[in-house]
C-alpha cells in the first residue's frame, strides 16, 4: 500500500493554507496528485480518521488532520477506537493502540 502518499497529503494539508483551500473546494482533484490506493483515497474523502489510524498514518499527522476537521478531542479519540473495532489492529507504524477499545484512559 502507499501509506507514504497518504501521510504526505496530510503533511501538506496540515501546514499549507492553499492545500486546505483545495481540500475544501476540490478534494478529488487534490487527491489525484498523490499516490493513494483506493482504501486510502476513500478514507480521506470520507474524513475517516479511524480508518486512517488503522492504516498506520502517523498519529501526529492524523491528530492535526482531526483538528482541521474540527473534531472535538473526545470524538477524535473515539474515532480511533472505532477504527480498531471496525478494521482490526493498527497495520503499520509506531502509533498502535496498547489499551482496550473500552478503556477510557483520560476519562474520555
Amino acid at each position: 500500500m502507499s501509506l507514504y502518499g497518504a501521510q504526505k497529503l496530510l503533511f501538506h494539508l496540515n501546514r499549507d493554507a492553499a492545500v486546505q483551500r483545495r481540500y475544501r473546494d476540490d478534494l478529488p482533484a487534490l487527491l489525484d496528485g498523490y499516490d493513494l490506493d483506493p482504501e486510502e483515497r476513500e478514507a480521506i474523502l470520507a474524513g475517516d480518521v479511524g480508518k486512517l489510524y488503522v492504516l498506520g498514518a502517523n498519529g501526529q499527522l492524523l491528530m492535526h488532520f482531526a483538528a482541521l476537521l474540527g473534531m472535538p478531542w473526545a470524538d477524535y479519540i473515539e474515532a480511533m477506537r472505532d477504527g480498531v473495532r471496525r478494521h482490526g489492529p493498527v497495520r503499520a507504524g509506531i502509533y498502535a493502540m496498547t489499551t482496550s477499545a473500552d478503556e477510557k484512559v483520560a476519562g474520555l
Partner: protein
Amino acid sequence: MSLVFAGVCSHAPGITGRAHLADPRVCEPFHAHFRAMGEELEAARPDALIVVGAEHFANFFMNNMPAYAMGMADRYEGPIEDPGWLGIAKTRVPGHAALSKRLIRCVLEDIDVAYAEEWKFDHGIMVPLHFLTPRFDVPVVPANINCQGPPLTPLKRAWAFGEALRRACDAAPERIAIVGTGGVSHWPATPDSGKINEAWDREFLDRWARNDRAALLSYSDEATYRDAGQGGFEIRTFIAVAAAARGQGTIRTYVPIPIFSVGCTIGLMAVE
C-alpha cells in the same frame, strides 16, 4: 557570553487547548510553574532563546528527514494548528538569522545539522513560548531533533548535539538561553492518550536532574517504546539540554495530567 539559562518543559497541545477540560486544582498550579519558568528566563536577560524541540511534521517529512535541524531566519510563524484547537493565536515570532548562522557553523564542527531559512512552529514550540515568552519578544533559534519518524538518531548523538550547541554558545557574545521541550512517557495521538508511566518518568527525571550521562544514555529505543510509548522518544531534547548545561537540575514540578496526555514537567538546570 554563552548560556545564561537552561531548562526543560512539556509542550503537549492539551496544556493550552484542553485546559478547560482539566481539573483547575491541577491545571492552574502547573500553568503557574510554567509562567514562573518564564519569569526566571526573563530575569536571565537572554538575547536569544534556543528551543530544542521535537516537531511533529510541521516542516520536515519522510521525503528528506533531518536528524538535526536548526532555523536560520529572522522570523518564524505559528502555530500551524487551528488556533481554536490549540488555544494559541497565530503570530509571528522573531528569529535571529545572524546568530543562527554563527551557531550552525560552529555546531557543524561536530554534528551534520541541517539548516532551514523557513520554519513553521507547531505546538511543540508554540506551547512553551506561550508561557515562557508570552509577548513573543525574545528571538528564537529553533533546533529540532527528529523524534517522530524512525529511524531516529541515537541518544549518544543527542548528547553530542547538546555539547555542540554549548560550544557554539560559548563562542557567541550574546546571552543565550536554552530550553528543551518534549514529553517523558506518553502515548499521544493514539486512543491511549492519557496513559502515563509515572514511575518511569520519575526515574528518568532523576537521572536528568543528576545529569548522569551514562544513566541517561542507557535507554534503548525498544525499551523506551515499551515502557514510555512513542512519545518517550522525545527524551532526546532533555538529554541535549543536560549536555549543554553541564550542571545539576531541579525538577520544579512533575504532575501527571491525563487530559493533557503527559506527565507535565518543568525543570531548570544550572549552567556550569
